[in-house]
């Protein structure tokens, strides 16, 4: 497919949505659904300059720290749990229990232990994002073609080498999928954690706007999060596509145009 067809197709859906929204808001004005220009203006006013250093940057810092912790821990724990059977059996109920507890619920008690500063927020983000990474690591490692494992044993790759060269690469598409889900969870929690016990941040601002019926600000917040999410996701996709070039390349080798 040509690049411009791809771009055109990709723009068609959002364009239709925007046009539909614009038409609906003109035909049927509603204070909670402000017209798009109002939204955009508020977006520019709020986020472009004034609150960027005080609210956006700290939020993103928490996000980055929490997500980095989640990736590291999720991968490490996933590998350990995936490869050490007794550990897996011991940890499995706890893992599934842990990830079922809504992380937002844990913010108040966490505040007691870690304070209302960034530590509790980073912790919550890490806690929420770690599970998708961990689970897909464990599951992805189970899906390796047994023929590859035979090969690996036969050429004398040790446990660590097998893990590094065979199991993890084979699981990498699944792990990247989990990391992407973790990214979303981290964003959700970045915002949510600022809605409870916070003094600044994107979530705090947006929640405040919601509580005061400031619809354009709420929408500006949604827009900001969507844009940030989009950019973060795009960066992630870039990294993933590079790492999984073999995967896409192989599939494309067979795919009919």
């Amino acid at each position: 497919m040509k690049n411009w067809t791809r771009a055109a197709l990709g723009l068609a859906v959002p364009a239709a949505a925007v046009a539909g929204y614009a038409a609906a808001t003109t035909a049927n004005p509603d204070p909670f659904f402000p017209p798009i220009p109002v939204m955009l203006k508020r977006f520019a006013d709020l986020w472009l300059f004034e609150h960027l250093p005080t609210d956006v940057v700290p939020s993103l810092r928490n996000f980055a720290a929490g997500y980095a912790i989640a990736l590291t821990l999720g991968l490490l724990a996933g590998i350990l749990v995936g490869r050490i059977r007794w550990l897996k059996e011991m940890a499995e109920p706890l893992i599934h229990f842990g990830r079922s507890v809504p992380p937002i619920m844990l913010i108040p008690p966490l505040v007691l232990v870690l304070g209302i500063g960034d530590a509790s927020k980073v912790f919550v983000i890490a806690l929420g994002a770690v599970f998708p990474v961990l689970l897909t690591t464990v599951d992805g490692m189970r899906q390796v073609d047994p023929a590859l494992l035979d090969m690996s044993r036969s050429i004398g790759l040790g446990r660590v080498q097998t893990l590094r060269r065979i199991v993890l690469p084979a699981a990498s598409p699944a792990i990247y999928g989990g990391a992407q889900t973790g990214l979303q969870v981290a964003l959700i929690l970045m915002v949510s954690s600022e809605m409870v016990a916070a003094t600044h941040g994107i979530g705090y601002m947006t929640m405040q706007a919601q509580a005061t019926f400031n619809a354009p600000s709420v929408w500006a917040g949604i827009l900001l999060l969507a844009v940030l999410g989009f950019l973060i996701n795009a960066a992630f996709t870039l990294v993933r596509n590079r790492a999984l070039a073999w995967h896409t390349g192989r599939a494309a080798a067979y795919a009919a145009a």
Partner: protein
Amino acid sequence: LTGCGSQEPAASAAPVDYDCANPSPVGQPIPVTFAANAIVSNGAVYAGLKEGFFKEHGLEIEIQPVANVSAAISSVQGGTTDFGFATSVSLFQAVDSGVPISVVAPFAGIAPNYYENMKNGVKGYTTEVTALVAAPGSGIKSPADLAGRTVAVADARGQSELTTRFVINEAGADADSVNYTVMAFPDSLNAFKAGQVDAIFTVDPFLSQAVAAGGEVISWPGVETFHEGPTSAIISSNKFIESAPQTVARFTCAIQESNEFANENPDAVREATAVAQGVEAATLATATVPYFYSTADLAGFERFAGIMHDFGFVTNEVDVQSVVLPRALSNG
């Protein structure tokens, strides 16, 4: 006042011929929904329900519990519920944002002359519903000492923050220098005990627990800000008011009767609230029951709106008169 594009004119109050004193019977009770969170300030409605005031006016009420005031306002304006509970602060913010809602009945507030009585040390006027409590050992003696400190408030840009800011400014400090962190009352109490915040804006029963833990009340921000008047109201959407004026009239009467009953029987209010919250009646035995206004206090509303405007909580000056239904201003 005009010039505020976002402000819709009040609901056109087509004269309705309904007399509270002579409840006209209906064949089938009219079903209506009411959005409220289960707090003592809503107690009059719970008590009124139990006393049968709503049934008397041919209404069958279903209470939709909501988490907070903005959720209640949202659900009223969206048409999910017919009526709802709103604090005056949230109400004016909503109106300021162009949300088409109006006050259909007065509700809980601070009793007339309360501030005067408190200043004069009249018995029974030593405490109020909301308080600012400083943490032990924080060295904070007055709201002025809060400058640069962290205070836990109950809602972002809501009544708690507004009144806290007001008392700090009154005390001569810069309200902007304070970190306001939003926490639910129980959480803020725990954070207070754990030394995570310097002061909390709170209400009973957390207030007494905070004091028991060594906290010191440094201000009664509600009464010190507003002095007296209705801090909350019963609202409905303009659309509903126009489409079902009879029902609204009946509802107004029932609320007014409930309010009068509540002022005379605070214990009944505590009891009914406890049932609604699903807690032991003893838990609320000492809870402060607010004063319930039976007619809307326009002057009070106007003063509140003015303070909000001064503190930038609303962008325009709110035309209060246009958002209060005439019927709510009179009794019966």
